C-alpha cells in the first residue's frame, strides 16, 4: 500500500553538502497493516512521513502510495499533498480555530476534487464524528474541545475523506498519561475496524510495541531494524535498538565459544556467560551481553546449578509499587533489575543472580 524506496532528504545546514535527515530509507507497508516508525527525535522519522504526505519534497528515491507513484526523483514526479489519497493527524492536531467541529470535519469534503451535496456532507461528517465518539459536539467551536477531543476531531477530519492511507505523527504525545493509554487502545481498535493502512510515527516504545503489526526503528536517518514488536523487543540486533527499546543491562566481553545453534559463550568481567549470539559473530569478537532488567533472576541462597550464575550484592532497592527496582553490584558492574514487590532485601545483602542463557543476547560493540 505504501512503498518507500531509497528515500533521501537533505537539509541545508550551511555546509555545501547539507545534512541527510533521511538516508536511503526503504520500507513497505502492506494493506490494512499498522506500521510504525520508531526512533529518538531527529532520527528522520517525521521527515520520512512528511515526504510521504507530500509536505516535503525528498531529494532522491521513490514513494508509491496505493499503487500510484506520488514521488520519484528520477522522473521528477511530485504529486502535491492535496492530490494524495492520504489522511493525516499531527501532534498539535492543527484544529482550525475559526471553524466549528462540524466544519472542521466537513472541510476535506468541501475542498476536494470530488464535490459532495450538502446532504452527503452531513451524513459523512456525522459518520466520521460518530466513529470518534464526538457525535454530539458538531455545533461547538473547535477550540472549546478538550485535548483528547481535539485529538479525536483531528482523526475524524483525517478519516472523513475515506483515505486509503492514514498517517499519524505522534498523535498521542500531547495527551496526559491516562488519556494516552486509553487513546492507544481506541486508536488501535479503530484502525482494526476500518482496516485502514496506517503509518505511525512515534518516539514512545510502548505505543510502538502495543499498536503495531510492524516496527521500523530509525536512528540518524536510517532504519536500523525492522520487525514485529516481539522481535524488536526480544531480539535487538544492535546496542542502539536494545537501549532505545526499554532499559537494558550491558556487560562487555569477548566471545570464547560459538555453537552451531546460534548460541555461544562470552567471557565477561563477571565470568563466562552462555548466551544467544547475533549471527555472524566469530570467536574473539568484542561484544556486549545485554539482558533486560525483568529477566534477571535473584536468589538469596546459592542455587545448586551454577551456569550463568554470578555472586553479587544488593546496591539499592527502590519500591515502585508494581515492582521493586533493585540495583545489583557485581564487581565493578551495576545491574538494574525488577523484582517482585514483596522481596525483602537491604543494601549489601549477598545474593546470586541468574542470567538465563535464553534471555542474554550478545551484540557487537558498535
Amino acid at each position, binding site marked *: 500500500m505504501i512503498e518507500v524506496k531509497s528515500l533521501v532528504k537533505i537539509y541545508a545546514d550551511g555546509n555545501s553538502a547539507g545534512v541527510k535527515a533521511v538516508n536511503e530509507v526503504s520500507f513497505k507497508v502492506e494493506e490494512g497493516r499498522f506500521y510504525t516508525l520508531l526512533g529518538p527525535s531527529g532520527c528522520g522519522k517525521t521527515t520520512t512521513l512528511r515526504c510521504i*504526505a*507530500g*509536505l516535503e519534497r525528498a531529494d532522491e528515491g521513490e514513494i508509491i502510495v496505493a499503487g500510484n507513484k506520488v514521488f520519484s526523483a528520477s522522473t521528477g514526479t511530485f504529486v*502535491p*499533498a*492535496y*492530490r494524495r489519497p*492520504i*489522511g*493525516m493527524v*499531527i501532534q*498539535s492536531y*492543527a484544529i*482550525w*480555530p*475559526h471553524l466549528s467541529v462540524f466544519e472542521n470535519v466537513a*472541510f*476535506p469534503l468541501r*475542498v*476536494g*476534487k470530488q464535490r459532495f451535496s450538502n446532504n452527503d456532507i452531513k451524513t459523512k461528517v456525522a459518520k466520521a464524528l460518530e466513529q470518534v465518539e464526538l457525535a454530539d459536539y458538531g455545533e461547538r467551536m473547535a*477550540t472549546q474541545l478538550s485535548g483528547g477531543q481535539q485529538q479525536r476531531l*483531528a482523526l475524524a*477530519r*483525517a478519516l472523513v*475523506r475515506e483515505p486509503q492511507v492514514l*498517517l499519524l505523527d505522534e498523535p498521542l504525545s500531547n495527551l496526559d498519561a491516562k488519556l494516552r493509554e486509553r487513546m492507544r487502545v481506541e486508536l488501535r481498535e479503530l484502525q482494526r475496524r476500518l482496516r485502514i493502512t496506517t503509518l505511525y510515527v512515534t518516539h514512545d516504545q510502548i505505543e510502538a510495541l502495543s499498536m503495531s503489526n510492524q516496527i521500523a526503528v530509525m536512528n540518524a536517518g536510517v532504519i536500523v531494524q525492522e520487525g514485529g514488536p516481539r522481535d524488536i523487543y526480544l531480539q535487538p540486533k544492535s546496542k542502539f535498538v536494545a537501549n532505545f527499546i526499554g532499559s537494558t543491562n550491558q556487560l562487555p566481553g569477548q566471545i570464547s565459544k560459538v555453537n552451531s545453534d546460534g548460541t555461544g559463550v562470552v567471557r565477561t568481567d563477571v565470568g563466562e556467560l552462555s548466551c544467544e549470539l547475533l549471527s555472524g559473530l566469530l570467536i574473539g569478537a568484542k561484544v556486549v551481553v545485554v539482558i533486560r532488567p525483568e529477566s534477571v533472576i535473584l536468589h538469596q541462597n546459592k542455587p545448586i546449578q551454577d551456569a550463568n550464575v554470578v555472586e553479587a550484592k544488593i546496591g539499592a532497592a527502590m519500591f515502585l509499587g508494581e515492582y521493586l527496582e533493585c540495583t545489583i553490584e557485581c564487581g565493578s558492574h551495576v545491574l538494574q533489575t525488577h523484582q517482585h514487590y514483596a522481596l525483602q532485601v537491604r543494601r549489601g545483602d549477598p545474593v546470586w543472580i541468574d542470567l538465563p542463557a535464553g534471555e542474554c543476547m550478545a551484540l557487537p560493540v558498535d
Partner: protein
Amino acid sequence: MATVALPRSNSSSVGLFREPAMLVPVVGAGVLIYLAVLPLLMLIIGSFQAEVAPREFVFTLKNYQNAYASQYTYSTFKNSLIFASGSAGLSFILGTLLAWLTERTNTPLRAIFVPLAVVPLILPGVLESIAWIFLLSPKFGYLNVWLMSLFGLQSAPFNVFSLPGMIWVHSVGQVPLAFLMMVAAFKSMDPSLEESAMMSGANTWQTFRRVTLRLLLPTAGSVLLILFVRTLESFETPALIGIPARIYVYTSEIYLAFNEYPPDYGRGGALAVGLLLLSAVGVWLYRRSTREGKKFQTVTGKAFRPRQFDLGPWRWVGLTFLLGYFIFVVLMPFLVLFWASFLPFFAAPSWDAIQKLSLDNYRYLSSFRPFWEAMKNSIILATLTASIAMILTSLVAWIVYKSKLRGAWVLDFLAFVPITIPGIVMGMALILLYVAFPIPIYGTIWVLLIAYVTRFIPYGMRAASGSIMQIHSELEEAAAASGASWWETFRRVTLPLLRPGFAAGWMYICIVSFREFSTSVLLATGESRVLSILLFTMFEQGQVTIVAAIGMLMILTLLIIVALFQKISGRVGIQT
C-alpha cells in the same frame, strides 16, 4: 495583580520619604498627571470657555457651535473619513502583500526586500510629502512631465493635490508599519494549520483563502484600525498637500483655527476635543479587538518553520511587484530629493539641468543661521526626549510590574493615556495650558520637550515593560539582601538589565522626536523652530531646492544618530 499592599520593607520605623519604593510611585504619578492629564483638562475646559486665559471662567458652547455647525463641518468630516479609510486600506493592502510575498512565498530574492521595505521609516513625513509633490505635482512633477512627453499627453495624468493624491502619499509612508505588523502576524501563524488543509485535499489557493486569510482576519481588523486612527491624527500630508489643494481634514481645521488672525483658540480646542474623542474610541476598539483576538491566537511558542506557498510561475509576478515597489515607492522619493538638492531651481533631469548642478544649496545652508538653530533644537530635543522618556518609563514600568503596590495599574493607565492624544491636539492643549500658566516656557523649546516626552511615553512604556517583565525578582532581592538600598538596586542591577529594552526604546523615540511635525507645528515658533517646521515654512515660501538640501541633511543626521548609537550600545554590550 497586587496581593500585598505594603512596600517590601517590613521595618515599620522607615518613614515614607526614607523608603524610595513609596516615594517613587507618588512622584511618578505626579509627573504623569502633570504631563498627560493636565493638558487634556485644560483643553476641555478651554473648549467651553469664552476667551483664552480669562480672569474668570465663563461657560459657553459657542466654540462647539463654531466648530461643528459651520458649512464646512460636513465636508471636513467627509474628507477626514475618506482620507483615513483610504490610507488605512491602501497601506494595509500594500503592507500585507509585501509581508506575504517576503514571508510566505517562494518569490525570488524575497529576503533582501525585508530590510528594504522598512527603509522609508527614515524619511520624515514632511519630506515624504515634499518628495511626492516633486514627483506628482500637475505643474512640474517629474513623473507627470515624463509621462506627458512619453505618451504625448495634453494634461498631467496625476494630480497629487487631490484626495487620492493625499491617500497615496500618506499610505506610502505608512506601509512599513503595516508591513511590520503583518510580518509579525504571518510569523506567528502555525503552519500546521495550513498543512492540515493541504492534507485534507485543499489546493494552494483554497488553503490560502479558507485557512490563511480566515486566521488573519482578527489581526487584519486591528491593523486596519490602528492605521485608520494614525491617519486621522496625522498632519504632514494634510498640511503640505491638503491645505494648498483646499482639502481640509480635522487636523488641518485645528491648525487653521490657530493660524487665522486673531487665533481662534476656542474653536481649535473644540475641534481638538472631537478629534481626541475619535482617536480614543479607535484606541479603545483596538485594545478590545486585540484582546478578543486572543481566542483566535495561533501562537504556541513553538519554533515554526513557516510554510512557503509555491507560487509557480506567478513568483515572477511577485518579484516584479517587489522590484516595482522598491524602485518607485522606496527609492524614487530619496532620489528626487537628492537630485533637487543640487539644483538652483526646480528642474527635470536633463543635460541642461545636469550642468546647473552645484553645491550652492549646501553652501548657502552652511551660513544660514535658522538652519543651524533648527538643527541644534532638533538634536537637543530628540536626545533629551528619548533620555527623559526612557528613564521615566523605566521607573514607571518597574513600579507597575515589580513593586506589587496596590493601585500600580493607575500608573500604567496614565502612561497609556497619551497614545490617544493626536499630535496636533497635544499642541493645542499645551498652548491653552501654558498661555494661562505662570511658567514662562511658551515659545521656547522646553514646551516642545514636554510635548514630545508626553506623546512618546507610551512607546517608552512598551519597550521598558517588555524587558522589565523578563527580569526575575530574585536578582533584585539578592541585591537587597547584599545590603543595597532601593535606589542602589535600581541603578546597579535593574537598569543594567534593562539596557536592551532601554536602548531600543531610546532609539525609536529619538527617531520619532527628530521627525516630529504635527505637535511642533503649533508650538515651534521663532527661535524654537525645529527642522521639520523649518522645512514646512521654507517649502511654503517656495524655496524648494534648499528644502531638498535640508531634507538630505536631516536624513543624514538621522543616519548618523542611528550609527553612533549602535556603536555606543555595541561597546557597552547592548543588544537591540
